[in-house]
């Protein structure tokens, strides 16, 4: 065998999966996302429509896609939970035993019993489990609670326990489904550490996530699914971008419906520092330049004003400015506008939401999750709270 060609860990060939829906379920919410085909009076839901790809040994393979794109079904096919309608999954070296964390967890059993139960389901023998029990408990930081029933655990504790067992699993391919969607920041940090570890060890991992940062940072390859088909496969950066674009399209489509408008003007937002360098990390009080650009030929969809909003990652709307109210009128000749903002903001993560509006203040296009930036922690803050407002002191 040639050394240059990576070994295949998992092969998926022309995978199709259809579900036959019982008649009374016809009007379910799921319908909104999938292609329906009526066959002999039965409603058939095509969830996967000819998916082929390979996962190589040592790949950190990300699968992304909107809800209802077929990700979960694909995972279940990979793990052998579902049988394919057509096509095949070839796993070189054992099936992958799990899909979700805490499978088989029983709320009525003690934490300890659940560790052994879950461990057995992941393919460990009793003696394997006894050997690693202490390690699992330590990692989960739950030693004082192991004799308590699981139902008395908080959801965070349950996830910690489940994850601590799951990472013990050794299989040629590991599958994680939305692990990062649960748990607090400290736990997510821990997950990412484990991922680093897997990468270092060359463990093959398949990861389903909605978090594009994780995809960009950790995945060696990625795949974007939409309506049961592969839209993009390969470079994780490209996949992440395509995913965001797809989401944007969907949002535009929805808002377009409301406004009976389907035009997009290719709205783009770029953030830079004052030297014109692309940066995402700033000091308190530094200046940020936000450049919004668009390309439009038709006069009726030309933006009359641009709105730049700053949100904290945790959800608070910090501030927002509009070109028109600030006295800047955009003309047909303009194709970009730059806002310079002094970042008197408390350290943390922020992102931008940028809108383009017509002269009647109707929305043309919006970038909901615009660029993100971080204000760096610093010692000796001169003010307290979220923002530093313009102020003066008068003493008498």
């Amino acid at each position, binding site marked *: 065998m040639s050394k240059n060609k990576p070994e295949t860990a998992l092969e998926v060939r022309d995978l199709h999966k259809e579900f036959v829906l019982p008649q009374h379920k016809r009007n379910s919410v799921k319908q909104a996302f999938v292609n329906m085909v009526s066959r002999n009076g039965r409603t058939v839901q095509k969830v996967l429509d000819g998916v082929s790809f390979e996962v190589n040994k040592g790949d950190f393979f990300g699968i992304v896609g909107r809800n209802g794109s077929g990700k979960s079904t694909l995972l279940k096919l990979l793990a052998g939970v579902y049988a394919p309608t057509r096509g095949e999954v070839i796993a070189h070296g054992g099936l992958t035993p799990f899909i979700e964390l805490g499978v088989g967890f029983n709320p009525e059993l003690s934490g300890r019993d659940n560790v052994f139960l879950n461990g057995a389901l992941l393919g460990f*023998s009793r003696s394997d489990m006894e050997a690693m029990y202490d390690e699992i408990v330590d990692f989960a930081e739950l030693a004082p609670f192991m004799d308590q029933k699981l139902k008395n655990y908080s959801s965070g504790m349950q996830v910690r326990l489940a994850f601590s067992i799951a990472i013990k699993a050794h299989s040629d391919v590991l599958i994680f489904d939305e692990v990062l969607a649960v748990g607090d920041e400290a736990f997510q940090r821990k997950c990412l550490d484990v991922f680093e570890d897997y990468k270092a060890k060359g463990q093959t991992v398949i990861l389903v996530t909605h978090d594009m940062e994780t995809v960009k940072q950790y995945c060696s390859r990625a795949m974007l699914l939409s309506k049961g088909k592969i839209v993009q496969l390969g470079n994780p950066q490209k996949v992440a971008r395509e995913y965001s674009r797809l989401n944007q399209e969907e949002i535009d489509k929805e808002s377009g419906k409301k406004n009976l408008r389907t035009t997009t003007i290719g709205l783009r937002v770029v953030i830079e520092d004052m030297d014109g360098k692309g940066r995402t990390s700033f000091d308190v009080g530094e200046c940020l330049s936000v450049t919004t650009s668009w390309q439009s030929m038709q006069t009726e969809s030309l933006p009359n004003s641009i709105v730049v909003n700053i949100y904290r990652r945790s959800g608070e709307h910090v501030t927002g400015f509009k070109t028109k109210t600030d006295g800047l009128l955009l003309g047909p000749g303009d194709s970009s506008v730059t806002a310079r903002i002094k970042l008197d903001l408390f350290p943390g993560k922020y992102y931008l939401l940028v809108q383009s509006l017509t002269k009647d203040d109707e929305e043309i296009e919006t970038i909901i999750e615009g660029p993100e930036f971080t204000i760096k922690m610093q010692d000796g803050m001169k003010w307290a709270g979220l923002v530093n407002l313009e102020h003066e002191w008068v003493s008498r």
Partner: protein
Amino acid sequence: MRYLSKKNRAILREMVSTDFKIRYQGSVLGYMWSVLKPLFLFAILYVIFTYVFKVGKNIEHYPVYLLLGVVLWNFFTEATVVGASSVVAHGDLIRKISIPRYLVVISSSVSALINLALSLLVVVTIALINGLRPETSWLMVPLLLLELFAFALAVAFILSAAYVKYRDITYIWEIMLQAGFYASAILFPLQLVPLQYQKWFFLNPIVQIVQDVRYSAVTHQTITMWDKVRPIFTIYPFIVIILVSVVARIYFKKQSKFFAENI
């Protein structure tokens, strides 16, 4: 053996032990109930059938004869009823991981088997008190229990696979069990049945098993298949059980591919 590999045995063990832990959850006497239940059952049967309905007065050790039958029947009922809903009851597992599907059915019948063992302890104790003494013919009993287990397991496989699609199955099966209870001559000695009908009872394989266990362990007054049909026909129950097992295997294997999506 692939079916009971180390991995599968570990899963089976955890599932059965979970089942027992959950079953006696929150009860003061806990595991004791597995023994107390057949004990009280015996007390009730003893009072009713020795003082009220004296159907067994011509059969020696009738209380033991009766209790043994009831205990075996209860095992068959438990193994098939719990087995029938086992796949659906473990839907959570089946929808998420690809453990062999037959394990959930086997685990429910192993739980029933453990209960049977505990009940049999009570039966043996009572038998000894009742004046029965161990004989070499008792050695037949484990083989007959194996036969009953095989039959119950095969039925449970068919029912559990069918139940995923047709939720009427458990109701139908419970009605059939009600009828089966009388068709299996559990509560009354077969002698009570008019002579010309006695042999038809043996169409039901359970009758052969229960009567043979009673014959081997309690009293030779028990009517067995050998008394009723030509020797060549005594092979009949085994053919039935093998046929049911073959059907069970094919049907379950075919259906189990789609359990995850049909549950």
